[in-house]
């Protein structure tokens, strides 16, 4: 099944979405899908009896700055039942960099989406745990964006020591204990 056939069957399942098959050199059928239909398409790909792409192999993004739409989010899937591979891509504008999460379809997407958020700054709406994954929590900027510098020097950051009086500490411990007992 090549990309065109696949897109035709997907179009039947989801008439609203727009699909655009593209030619690739690595023999993996590839198509673009409109951003708002990612989750619906993902569900069809996973559950449809003649597709069964149950395994999400890869989820990543590419930044094509300065052209717009600058981001492409890439999903690579494998169907174990039919021994097929597939690549799905979504174009995302830099000014409106968000799309829906597929964590509910493939649980494996959780950390992969966090990584994309961390390094590219693309927001995944409805993500259960939208924190940075690889960079420090207080990092500013998104390193894998093309307009992010390769080398930066930051002044050393010195945190103020936490000052707690003995009384405050005792109250805090007691409060924690009470809140646990209420649970």
């Amino acid at each position, binding site marked *: 099944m090549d990309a065109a056939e696949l897109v035709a069957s997907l179009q039947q399942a989801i008439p609203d979405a727009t699909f655009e098959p593209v030619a690739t050199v690595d023999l993996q059928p590839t198509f673009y899908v409109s951003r708002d239909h990612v989750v619906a398409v993902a569900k069809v790909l996973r559950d449809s009896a003649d597709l069964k792409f149950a395994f999400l*192999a890869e989820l990543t993004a590419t930044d094509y700055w300065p052209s717009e739409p600058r981001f492409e989010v890439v999903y690579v899937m494998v169907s174990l039942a039919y021994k097929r591979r597939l690549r799905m891509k979504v174009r995302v504008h830099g000014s409106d960099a968000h799309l829906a999460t597929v964590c509910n379809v*493939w649980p494996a997407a959780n*950390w992969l989406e966090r990584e994309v958020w961390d390094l590219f700054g693309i927001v995944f709406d409805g993500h259960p745990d939208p924190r940075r994954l690889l960079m420090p929590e207080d990092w500013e900027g998104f390193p894998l964006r093309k307009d992010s510098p390769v080398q930066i020097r930051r002044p050393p950051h010195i945190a103020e020591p936490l000052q707690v009086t003995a009384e405050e500490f005792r109250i805090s411990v007691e409060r924690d204990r009470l809140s646990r007992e209420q649970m």
Partner: protein
Amino acid sequence: MAEFHTETMTVNMGPQHPSTHGVLRLVLQLDGEQILSASPTIGYLHTGIEKTAEQKKWQQVIPLVERMDYLSAQSNSMAFCMSVERLLGVELPERVKNIRILLAELQRINSHLVWLGTHGMEVGAVSVMLYCFRERELLLNINEMIAGFRLFPSYMRVGGLREDLPRGFHDAVRAFLERMPGKLDEYEDLLTQNEIYLKRTQGVGVISKDDAVAWGLLGPIARAAGVDYDVRKVFPYLGYETYEFAVPTQAAGDVYSRYKVRVAEIRESMKICRQALDRITPRGEYAIGDTKITPPPKDRVYTEMEALIQHFLIYSQGFTVPVGEAYVPVEGPRGEQGFYVVSDGTNRPWRIKSRPPSLLACQALERMIVGGLIADVIAVIGSIDVVMGDVDR
């Protein structure tokens, strides 16, 4: 009788814990010895290799990707080279394919030996570690022989290999393949029927077949849970379809079946190595003949003007790769591995992204340890074979 006042305890395991294979930090919530919740924190080894690679020329990326998963250097660079070669549209000579298969399988044995040794040590069988590292030394010697570097040989190149095989390569590999089966039996004598090892591993860290697929764990972990998927069989590359080997699977999905699968994989890898070694001639082609990609032999550089120009161009400007994207999956020691490579038509990659099997294994760790005992955490982390360099990149 007075009422007992119990409370849960939050414990940081790591980042410097010796059995977390690098710097993995687990925040565990404990009720006595039982684990209520676990949240892995990663990123301590993040060095931005993908960003660095965008500044390098195509061939210069190879040493970088070898340092991602530092126990499977040859597999990493092979996966990267294959993606770039797919973009370039070059077809490798048969001999190069066989050498790559041989080196990738030796790398798999190497990685599994480190895994078996460290995992054995963590559950209390220290002698296994000493034995495994003894045999691994022979593999590192082979790496030193072909490239002068033991851990990160950088021997794979886009378009083939760096140079021809050294003298005595066949003898060294053959000696290893003759020695190894007996030694593997020795390791199995120490562990397979060992009562203490069975108690520590059977029924521990179980993951079901469906969960293994949903969490993207394809590789030895999923094969131990009964998923019959191996890239070498399902999407053959480099001519694996002409080799005879089996894909070992188990059904239980616990730590012990992962051990069984990996030991069986070492045996299958040795089978492939023997077949590959018979097909490789001691001297012959080691790269494609494209003068834009492959540098000329050194003796021609010293004597011919054209060869000198070609040498100079390749090392100063590199080569350009046509616009496009490619992802060629290979079966690494930890599961499906591959590099998603995007080119904008220049001599530097626009984007490279490795598929990290260890990251996904680390993500699913929580599912395997919650509800178990804290002592089992060590056995489970060992059994999923995470390499933190691959997790954090």
